[in-house]
């Protein structure tokens, strides 16, 4: 069972071989490191860029203008915040030229907490990013989804933003990708060795064209009492909470949004129509948060079908995630707080 970084690597390889990806670049993306999370090890078109995020996004846009498909990495989403103007431009070039131009490019960047990254390695990016029109935005929570969504990004004619939940990069999936060798074998094939790597070459397994369409959510657990919508790091926690609460007789439907924009509203609607109760969970700071958009839309379209007020569980509105364990735990949703929020919602009187 591949980890998420292994899945990303295989998807990028597939992209190089089959989808015309010609450049995979960013800070420390090429050899010898292959990315600080190793997502780009062994790839034939990967290279190290100057330490310049604005240059990285600009270069990606220019490559896209030239019709050369690329994947640009920003090492941590914390360091993408000096490029918001460029992301806005990338998202507006088709519109501004009244449909003349399109920018087929993918930006990927690790987001969120979970590795004790403290103030400058824990930021989320979903709130800021979903406010920028013209992009498609995805965030997987499993290796298989990471693989399949990345393939769809690499096929899209528009700029795509691939958010990698950094806490999950080394978590193994439960599903095998078609053609995926077993764990040890896979590791031997595509993980760069420690020490000297100058002679090393990846041997790539034949993983097929397993792609997951954008804008399609996934029902992770079916249930009738409460709908929980999440993505990324908090998604597995929501599933765990659902499993635990099943013991208490609370039937929770969990939905992995997977594509944040344009998102699968119909999946949410069907579920809420069934449960009448919804909790949105993400770990970005809670003010002007994407979950608040989802609540607004829920209120707009489903107000009179709700049995309880729709809720958001998100990150505390602090300037950062503190390093010390108690601080990180208290700043972003954890299994405990998620479980509690679902339980409370389930028990609220209609």
């Amino acid at each position, binding site marked *: 069972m591949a980890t998420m970084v292994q899945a990303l690597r295989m998807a990028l390889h597939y992209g190089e071989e089959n989808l015309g990806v*010609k*450049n995979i670049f960013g800070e420390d993306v090429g050899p010898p490191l292959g990315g600080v999370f190793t997502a780009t090890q062994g790839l034939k078109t990967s290279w190290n*860029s*100057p330490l*310049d995020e*604005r*240059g990285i*996004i*600009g*270069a*990606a*846009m*220019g*490559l*896209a*203008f*030239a*019709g*050369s498909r*690329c994947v640009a990495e920003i090492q941590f989403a914390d360091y993408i915040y000096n490029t918001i*103007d*460029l992301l806005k*431009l990338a998202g507006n*070039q*088709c*519109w*501004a*030229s*009244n*449909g*003349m*131009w*399109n920018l087929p490019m993918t930006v990927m960047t690790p987001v969120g907490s979970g590795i004790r990254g403290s103030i400058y390695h824990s930021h989320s990016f979903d709130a800021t990013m979903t406010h920028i*029109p*013209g992009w*498609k935005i995805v965030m997987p929570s499993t290796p298989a989804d990471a693989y399949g969504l990345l393939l769809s990004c690499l096929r899209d*004619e*528009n700029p795509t933003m691939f958010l990698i939940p950094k806490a999950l990069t080394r978590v193994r999936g439960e599903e095998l990708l078609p053609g995926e060798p077993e764990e040890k074998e896979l590791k031997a094939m595509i993980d760069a060795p420690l020490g000297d790597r100058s002679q090393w070459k990846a041997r790539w397994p034949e993983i097929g064209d397993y792609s997951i369409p954008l804008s399609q959510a996934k029902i992770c657990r079916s249930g009738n009492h409460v709908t929980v919508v999440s993505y990324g790091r908090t998604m597995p926690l929501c599933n765990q909470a659902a499993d635990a609460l099943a013991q208490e007789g609370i039937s929770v439907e969990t939905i992995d949004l997977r594509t944040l924009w*344009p*998102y699968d*509203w119909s999946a949410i609607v069907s579920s809420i129509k069934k449960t009448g109760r919804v909790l949105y969970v993400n770990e970005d700071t809670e003010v002007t948060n994407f979950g608040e958009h989802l609540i607004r839309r829920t209120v707009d379209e489903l107000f009179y079908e709700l049995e309880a007020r729709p809720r958001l569980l998100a990150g505390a509105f602090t300037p950062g995630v503190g390093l010390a364990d108690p601080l990180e735990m208290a700043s972003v949703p954890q299994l405990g707080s998620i479980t509690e929020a679902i339980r409370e919602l389930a028990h609220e009187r209609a």
Partner: protein
Amino acid sequence: MKRGSTTKNASGSQGRLSGNASSSASKKIPPAMIASGLNGKKQGLRAEKPSALTRSSEVNRMVHAPTKAVSPLVKNGLAKKFRLDPELLVKIHDHMVKTRALEERMIKMFKQSDGYFWLGGPGEEAFAIPLGMNGKVGQGVQYDFWHLHYRSSGILMPMGLDPMGCIRQMKNVVADPHSGGRNFANHLSIREWNVVPITSTIETQYLTSIGSAIAQKQEAKDSLTVVTGGDAGTAEGDFASALVWSSRPGNELPLFMIVTNNSWGISTASCTQHGDKIIADRGKAFGIKTRQINGLDVEESWFAIREAMDYVRTERKPFLMEATVSRMYGHSSATGANLVAGEADPIATFEEQLAAADIMTPKEMSDLREEYNAQMMEMAKRVKEEPMPDPSTIYDYTYYGQKGRYW
């Protein structure tokens, strides 16, 4: 106009061009292709789209023609001794006048409330037209890419820019071919010629230019990327990013970086903000070839541009050029768009030289000007009748090919 009656001197101090050009020829790299026709006919309202692959030999013939005897008509040694063929000079002049007529018409439109905002390039023609004429024009990575400043109508004119398209954008009508009535005047976009959408965000074009130059480095033998911007804008870190990325050892980019220095950023004088007295010098620490030129002079621009482009095309390495230009109508309509005393007029200078060299008569030149003025006025009149975009279209093309509200 009198053809062939002037002088030509290819052996001056700037005579490196022919050397370079022949060295490029010996490397079997096709020379730069000219962007516009040279038949000397006045163009009709609708500019013809030139073929990118024609006329290169024609240009070469004119530029590299053997030196002729000095015309007896050149007066007192005061007149410029042109090195370019008269036919080419006349063509350049034609594009310059046409560009100016277009810009001045758009200024008038602004003043008559036929458009909310104007800014553009009067004062840059002597540099812009030679630049555009030396482009390799077409679509895709084998042709030059253009990441341009908002004063670039002159660069695109010799490629066959349709003035009506500009006037439509000025009036933000639905038929505006660059933005469908969405963007300001001179925010041009022409995918067929690799002209990426001009944005107002100062200096970001230096970042996007990196990418198309990378693609060209990887996939093309002689196409290059041109990026232009103003002097004040070089204070943005993005300018430095282009220097860094274009000079990576072993990965140098075919990037022709240009700064059009008009000494101002809106109301702020360069000399109050820029310790880098010669902006081009900023390339030196990176080992980038640099040059500062007088962009108000047609021939100096022509030869400097040819030389730089030949270098970038053949060496696949960057070049940084700073060209002095003027800002004849001030920054934009926001500052009045009136003729500014003291700002040099490169067309006036050029016309004096052309007259002195007996290449064109004053009457020919004023006739030309009037003809273009009349054409532009006619277009501005026509555009008044054209419809505005429909409010229902605001969501169109958020994504490629998408129409209507999508969420």
